[in-house]
């Protein structure tokens, strides 16, 4: 710590140059933070997927429906613990920009399948007792200032009502929280029996199934069994682990990891050159001073540590500020109004960012430190 004033004063020597270098590092780490958040938002479904859950959808396309009767048949297969269904409702609340998912479900079965949704017991009871009842995630409830007891009209361009009413009206009977940060709390769930009786289409049709297996190790075998069970039927199915499905969704958008890594690689390489050049220039300009320091107090190793400490302080300061700023930006939540419900920087990525800033400091300080170490005192002093 006693060397910190010396390091700090050296950084303040050329204020504008230090500020611009700091700014370039800061911008790189803001970009790192934002790209991490985007990557997490697009692939977050993979990390929140249950290891013991399969998703069963129509073999041809997710938009084709499956019979509700498949539930009983699947639950009779060995290795299957529970099968629950959902259907894409695609509703609009006030404005198409207000995007969030709404699905009809059977309350007991749905909550049993998704323990990551935390709903107080009295609200569960109210949902089961209210045919038009719906539960909504905390994020969406907060966004629209909904509270329990509110009536919420939602229009669905897919599911028209038999009675010709333009909108479906739901009573908010519960607001659920997520068990952890990665749980999506932007959706709304309402009762399947209300939906099935009131919509204009064929009854007894559902969108897809979520199947819980008794032993996660048997997931692949159970998926094959399910596929086989419905072979040659009118609605053949494709069963796959929830994580694999989330991954295939993400893959439709391209290899997010490769894209983000490529962008980050290019940015970091540029920053490395900029900062490395600045540090080299600093050391060249301070040849005599370093010579004096070596004459009066420092060994070669200590000079190396001093130069490396300077570059690390600069990189960690810029990196820390950049990560802090990107955290502030992302803490405001999804900037797209619902397309990226899990838009945040994971703690893991913040730690990786800090590690990268230290690595950046060491990498950019390495050659200038070597230069300072090799400096011969007598030669440096002759340059006076």
């Amino acid at each position, binding site marked *: 710590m006693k060397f910190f004033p*010396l390091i700090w004063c050296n950084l303040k020597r050329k204020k504008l140059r230090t500020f611009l270098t700091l700014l370039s590092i800061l911008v790189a780490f803001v970009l790192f933070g934002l790209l991490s958040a985007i990557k997490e938002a697009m692939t977050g479904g993979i990390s929140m997927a249950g290891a013991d859950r399969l998703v069963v959808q129509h073999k041809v396309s997710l938009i084709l429906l499956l019979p509700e009767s498949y539930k009983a048949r699947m639950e009779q297969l060995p290795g299957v613990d529970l099968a629950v269904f959902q259907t894409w409702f695609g509703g609009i609340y006030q404005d198409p920009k207000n995007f969030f998912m709404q699905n009809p479900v059977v309350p007991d079965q749905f909550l049993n399948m998704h323990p990551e949704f935390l709903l107080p017991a009295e609200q569960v009871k109210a949902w089961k007792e209210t045919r038009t009842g719906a539960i909504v995630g905390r994020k969406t409830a907060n966004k629209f200032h909904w509270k329990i007891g509110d009536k919420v009209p939602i229009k669905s361009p897919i599911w028209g009502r038999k009675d010709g009413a333009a909108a479906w009206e739901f009573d908010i009977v519960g607001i659920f929280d997520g068990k952890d940060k990665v749980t999506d709390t932007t959706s709304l769930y309402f009762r399947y029996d209300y939906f099935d009786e009131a919509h204009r289409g064929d009854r007894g049709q559902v969108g897809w199934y979520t199947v819980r297996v008794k032993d996660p190790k048997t997931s692949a075998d159970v998926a094959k069994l399910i596929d086989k069970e419905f072979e040659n039927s009118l609605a053949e199915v494709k069963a796959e682990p929830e994580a694999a499905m989330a991954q295939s969704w993400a893959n439709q958008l391209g290899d997010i990891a490769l894209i983000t890594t490529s962008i980050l690689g290019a940015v970091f390489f540029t920053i490395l050159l900029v900062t490395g050049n600045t540090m080299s220039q600093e050391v060249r300009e301070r040849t005599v001073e370093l010579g004096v320091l070596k004459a*009066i107090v420092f060994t*070669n*190793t200590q000079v190396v540590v001093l130069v490396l400490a300077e570059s690390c302080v600069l990189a960690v300061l810029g990196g820390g500020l950049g990560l802090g700023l990107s955290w502030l930006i992302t803490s405001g939540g999804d900037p797209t109004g619902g397309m990226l419900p899990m838009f945040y920087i994971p703690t893991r990525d913040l730690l990786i960012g800090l590690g990268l800033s230290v690595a950046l400091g060491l990498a950019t300080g390495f050659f200038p430190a070597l230069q300072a170490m090799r400096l011969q005192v*007598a030669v440096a002093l002759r340059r*006076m």
Partner: protein
Amino acid sequence: MNEPTKTNGPLVNVDGVEKVFRRGSEDIHVLRDLHLKVPAGEFLALMGPSGSGKSTLLNLIGGLDRPTRGSVSIGGERLDGLSDRLLAGWRARHIGFVFQLYNLMPTLNAERNVELPLLLTHLTKAERRKHVAAALEMVGLSHRAKHFPRTMSGGEQQRVGIARGIVTDPTLLLCDEPTGDLDRKAGDGILDLLQALNREHGKTIIMVTHDPHASARALRTVHLDKGQLSAEAVA
């Protein structure tokens, strides 16, 4: 602060030293078979024209460079046997340097500049402050402790440089043209200070200069010419 070096012989013993620099394919003999003894408590002036090897000799005595041949001993300890790391530690404990252009860190105030040689000691912050205050007091600059070099005159900066040189209570103070960049009045002030350090505090001082006015303040003057001490000046 440091234990005085115990020796029966001279404090500084330069024995048959040669220094050769290589420039391209040419060898340049800067010092040739040079012998010099400096007893403890001496104030020695090293005079000579430019290129005579004064600063090179000072660097060898200060352990900043190594002789091509011969040996340099301080307080009976041969410097050529020390590794670079040990030599750096030895320098920090035993040698105080004063440079012609002061060479203060422009980003540190006077107090912090003087504190630099103490940073690698085991002294606490409070102890370091005490030593710094004493050194600044000795050079008459206590009132400028918080000032930065750019706000000081050349004479004041050199006083800070001297305070930095003596703050570790070194065995030997090496001054390379300490008045070379100062006007006569400021230079006299510095020479008064060096004389006082020698007379009142018993500091052994070797001063490189080409100014006869400065060398007149020393107890003894030796002349260097073409890498050798002139005969009449050898003690």
